C-alpha cells in the first residue's frame, strides 16, 4: 500500500477517554501489543467534562447500600429496557474498579474515617458517587493516562479513524489520518475496541466537543454491527443558557446533590408539582424534608430536583414553553439559598463545587454563592449504541468490541448520573480483557489493499474539489439546527419525517463539501469527513425515534405521551441492509433472569 504507513497490533483501541484508556490498560496487562488511536491529544477526551462522580455501591456513607440496590436503581432509571446482564455486572464490579483507581494515583474526597466519600445523585437511592469536588472526570482520565503510559502501549494522538478494515466477516483493523500532516495510516489488528463516545455534535445545544460525531457508532454500523436503542438521547437538564455562546456547557447535577433547587420565573419550586408514581414514595413532598435529605438525614426522602434526568429535563422544558422561564430562556438553579441553612454556605459551595463557581464567574460573570444560575436542557449523552454481549463487550462482528458511551445496553431508556464513569471503567476493563483474549485465540488477519485504496480515495475527495462546492461547516450547522428543532427533547411524527427528508438532502450536499486548503491540520477537511458519520447517526436516531410510538425515559413523543406496555418489551435495532439502506427492526427484550427480577421486585417494596 504505497504512501500508507502500516502498524500492527493485537488490540487496537479507538478512543482515549475513560473506556478506551481502561480497555488499553487491561489489554496491555494481558501481555498483548496494544495501539491507541485518539482524535485529540491524550487526556483531553470528553471524560474530563464529567463532574459529579462515579457510582459504585461501596456503602462508605450509607451501609444499607449494596450492588442489589444499585442494580435495581439502574434498571428502574432505564425503564427496564437495559441489558440486565450489564446492569448486574456494572453494579457488582464498580466498587472494585473505583478502588483500584486509588492504587493508580486517584485522590478522591474522603469520609471522616478516611474512606472514599460518596455523594447523592439523581435516581440513586443512597449516596453512591465517589468524587473529587466537581472534577471527577478529570481525575479519572488523568489517573488512567498517567498509569497507562507506563504499560508500553503505543498512542497515536490526533488521529481520526475513517473506516474499519475487514478480513471477510472479521474486523482486521482501521484506516486513519493524522491531523498534523494528513498522512494516512493503516492499522492491522486482530481485535478492535471502539471507545469513541457520543453523538452530541448532531445537535446545536450540546455539552459535547467537536469530536463527538458518532464515529464508533457509524464505523460499527458500516462494518455490519447492530445499533440498539438510538432514540434514547439524554438531554441533561442543566446546561448553561447564557451567555448564548456558551449555551450547552454542563452544570453538574452535583449542584442539586448539594441542595440546589430549581425555580421558575415566578419563584415557584416547580419540581414539587410533578412527581412520577414510580418515585412518589421515595420523594420528599416539602422543602424542609428535601434539605434534610441533602444533609444526610437518613429518615428523609430525596428532594424532587434529584429525580431522574429525563424527568427533570422535561419539567424544565415545560416551564420554559409555558412562558415561566428565566430571562434568557432557561429556569433558575439556586444553590445560594442554602445560606439560610448553613452559616458558612459561601465557603461550602466553593469547596464542594469549585469548577461551577469558576465556570460561572469566568463565563457569565455570576457569583453562584450569591445569585441563581440560569439553566436549561443540553444534549449530553446517548444511551443507544453498538449492541454488544454483556460479558465480553463484543459486537455481532467478530473481533469488534465496543465500550462506554458508544456501546449500548447498560442504561436502557435513560442513564442515571454517575453511572457513566463507572460504565467506562467496568466495561472498558471487560472489553480490553476480552479483546486481548480474542487476539490470542485467533490467527492473524490480512488487510485488503483494494479496500484501503477505496477509503484513501474517498478521504481525499473533499480536498480535490479545491474549495469549489459546499461549506462543510454550514452543512454541519444546518444539520444541528434541524436535529435540535425536529428530533429534540419532545418529538412529533411529522417533524421527524421532515428531518429524514432533511437528512437525505444534506447528504446530497455533503457529497459536494469542498473545504479549501491542503492536508495539513485542516479543520475544514476534518469537518467535511465527519459529516458522513454525523448524518448516519442522525438518521439512526430519527428512524429509531419515529418507530417508538410511546414516551419512555429520555424519549418523549408529543403524539404518544404515554408509555406503551407492549413497547416496554422492545429494543429498537438499526443495521445496514445489503444495498447500504438503513434497516430498522424491533427486537424483544431478552427475558430477565429470575433472581434479578426478584431483586427488582424486592427493591420496589423497600
Amino acid at each position, binding site marked *: 500500500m504505497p504512501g500508507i504507513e502500516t502498524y500492527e497490533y493485537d488490540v487496537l483501541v479507538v478512543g482515549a477517554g475513560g473506556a478506551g484508556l481502561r480497555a488499553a490498560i487491561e489489554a496491555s496487562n494481558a501481555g498483548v501489543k496494544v495501539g491507541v488511536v485518539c482524535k*485529540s491529544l491524550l487526556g483531553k477526551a470528553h471524560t474530563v467534562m464529567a463532574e459529579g462522580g462515579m457510582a459504585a455501591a461501596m456503602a462508605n456513607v450509607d451501609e444499607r447500600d449494596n450492588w442489589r440496590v444499585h442494580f435495581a436503581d439502574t434498571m428502574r432509571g432505564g425503564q427496564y429496557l437495559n441489558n440486565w446482564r450489564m446492569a448486574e455486572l456494572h453494579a457488582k464490579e464498580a466498587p472494585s474498579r473505583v478502588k483500584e483507581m486509588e492504587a493508580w*494515583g486517584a485522590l478522591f*474526597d474522603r469520609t471522616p474515617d*478516611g474512606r472514599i466519600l460518596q455523594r447523592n445523585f439523581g435516581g440513586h437511592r443512597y449516596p453512591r458517587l465517589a468524587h473529587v469536588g466537581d472534577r471527577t472526570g*478529570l481525575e479519572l482520565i488523568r489517573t488512567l493516562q498517567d498509569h497507562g503510559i507506563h504499560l508500553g502501549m503505543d498512542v497515536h494522538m490526533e488521529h481520526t479513524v475513517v473506516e474499519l478494515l475487514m478480513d471477510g466477516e472479521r474486523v482486521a483493523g482501521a484506516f486513519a489520518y493524522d491531523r498534523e500532516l494528513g498522512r494516512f495510516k493503516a492499522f492491522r489488528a486482530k481485535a478492535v475496541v471502539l471507545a469513541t463516545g457520543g453523538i452530541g455534535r448532531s445537535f446545536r445545544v450540546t455539552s459535547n466537543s467537536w469530536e463527538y460525531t458518532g464515529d464508533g457508532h457509524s464505523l460499527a454500523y458500516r462494518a455490519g454491527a447492530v445499533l440498539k436503542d438510538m432514540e434514547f438521547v439524554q438531554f441533561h437538564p442543566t446546561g448553561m443558557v447564557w*451567555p448564548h*455562546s456558551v449555551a450547552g456547557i454542563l452544570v453538574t447535577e452535583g449542584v442539586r446533590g448539594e441542595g440546589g433547587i430549581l425555580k421558575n420565573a415566578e419563584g415557584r419550586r416547580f419540581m414539587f408539582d410533578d412527581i412520577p408514581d414510580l418515585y412518589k414514595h421515595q420523594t420528599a413532598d416539602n422543602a424542609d424534608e428535601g434539605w434534610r435529605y441533602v444533609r444526610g438525614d437518613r429518615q428523609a426522602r430525596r428532594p424532587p430536583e434529584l429525580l431522574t434526568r429525563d424527568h427533570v429535563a422535561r419539567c424544565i422544558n415545560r416551564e420554559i414553553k409555558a412562558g415561566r422561564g428565566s430571562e434568557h430562556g432557561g429556569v433558575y438553579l439556586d444553590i445560594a439559598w442554602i445560606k439560610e441553612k448553613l452559616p458558612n454556605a459561601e465557603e461550602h459551595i466553593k469547596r464542594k463545587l469549585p469548577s461551577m463557581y469558576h465556570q460561572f464567574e469566568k463565563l457569565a460573570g455570576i457569583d453562584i454563592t450569591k445569585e441563581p444560575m440560569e439553566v436549561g436542557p443540553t444534549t449530553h449523552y446517548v444511551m443507544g449504541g453498538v449492541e454488544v454481549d454483556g460479558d465480553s463487550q463484543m459486537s455481532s462482528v467478530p473481533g469488534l468490541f465496543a465500550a462506554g458511551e458508544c456501546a449500548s445496553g447498560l442504561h436502557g431508556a435513560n442513564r442515571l448520573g454517575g453511572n457513566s464513569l463507572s460504565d467506562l471503567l467496568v466495561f472498558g476493563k471487560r472489553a480490553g480483557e476480552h479483546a486481548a483474549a480474542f487476539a490470542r485465540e485467533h490467527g492473524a488477519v490480512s488487510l485488503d489493499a483494494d479496500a484501503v485504496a477505496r477509503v484513501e480515495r474517498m478521504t481525499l475527495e473533499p480536498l480535490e474539489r479545491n474549495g469549489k462546492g459546499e461549506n462543510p461547516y454550514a452543512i454541519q450547522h444546518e444539520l444541528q439546527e434541524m436535529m435540535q428543532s425536529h428530533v429534540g427533547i419532545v418529538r412529533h411524527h411529522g417533524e421527524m419525517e421532515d428531518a429524514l427528508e432533511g437528512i437525505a438532502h444534506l447528504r446530497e450536499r455533503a457529497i459536494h463539501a469542498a473545504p479549501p486548503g*491542503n492536508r495539513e491540520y485542516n*479543520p*475544514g477537511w476534518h469537518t467535511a469527513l465527519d459529516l458522513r458519520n454525523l448524518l448516519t447517526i442522525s438518521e439512526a436516531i430519527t428512524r429509531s425515534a419515529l418507530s417508538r410510538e410511546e414516551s419512555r425515559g429520555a424519549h418523549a413523543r408529543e403524539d404518544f405521551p404515554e408509555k406503551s406496555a407492549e413497547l416496554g418489551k422492545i429494543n429498537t435495532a438499526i443495521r445496514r441492509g445489503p444495498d447500504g439502506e438503513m434497516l430498522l427492526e424491533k427486537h424483544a427484550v431478552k427475558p430477565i433472569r429470575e433472581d434479578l427480577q426478584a431483586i427488582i421486585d424486592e427493591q420496589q417494596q423497600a
Partner: protein
Amino acid sequence: MPDATFRIWRGDASGGALQEYPTFYENGMVVLDVIHKIQAEQAQDLACRWNCKAGKCGSCSAEINGKPKLMCMTRMSDLDVSQPVTVQPMQTFPLLRDLVTNVEWNYRVKQEIKKLEPRKPDAPDGTWRMQQADVERAQEFRKCIECYLCQDVCHVLREHHKHNEFAGPRFLIHIAQLEMNPLDVADRVPDLKDRHGLGYCNITKCCTKVCPEEITITDNAIIPLKERVVDRFYDPLKKLFGG
C-alpha cells in the same frame, strides 16, 4: 452586534504572518467563539485546537494580545476591541500550523517521571485510609488541565530552551502531587535534582500567574520540592558531619 478585528497568526514552520479578519460578535462570546466564527465564515482551514470549551480540557491555549490564555475562558468583554485582538500560538513549542503547536515534548517528559508506588493497603479489603486534609495538598495540583501555559511562559523553556534538562512547571507540580500523595513510597528527589532540573527554576512565579486553574505552582509545589532537594543534597550540617 459589536465588531472587532482579529489578527490571527497564519502559517507553519516555514513561515507565516498575522492576518486580519474583521468580524462581528455577540455579547457574552469568548475568543474561541470568535475564532470558530471566523473559521466557519472566512477561513475554513484555520487550525486551532479545542475540545470542552469550558476550561476543563486545556486544549485551546494561545497568546491573546501577548498574554498566555485559554481562548475558551477569555471573554470578549474583557478585551479592548478598539484595537485589533491579536491571537498567536504558544511560542515555547514548535509550530505546526496557525494556532497549533507541537506539544509532544510534554508527553515525553511525563513518561520519564516515576509513577505512583502505593504503600501496602491499610485494610484487609485492599483499600487505604486517608484524611481529607492530607489529600487536599495533592488535590490542588491534580486540578491541572495540562494546557501547558505555564510551560509556555517559563523563561527557562521560552528564552533558554532548556527542554532537555528541565521538566518545567507542569511536571514539577505533577511530581509534587506524586510526592504528596499519602500512599506514595517512591523516591523522586535525586531525579528532581538531576534529571528534571529543578535548580533551573528561580522562582519568578510567571507560571503561577498564568495558570487558568489558579494553582499556586511556585509556592505550594516548587518551593517544597526545592526544600526536599536541599535537605537531601545540600544540608550544610550533613556536609560538615558527614550525616
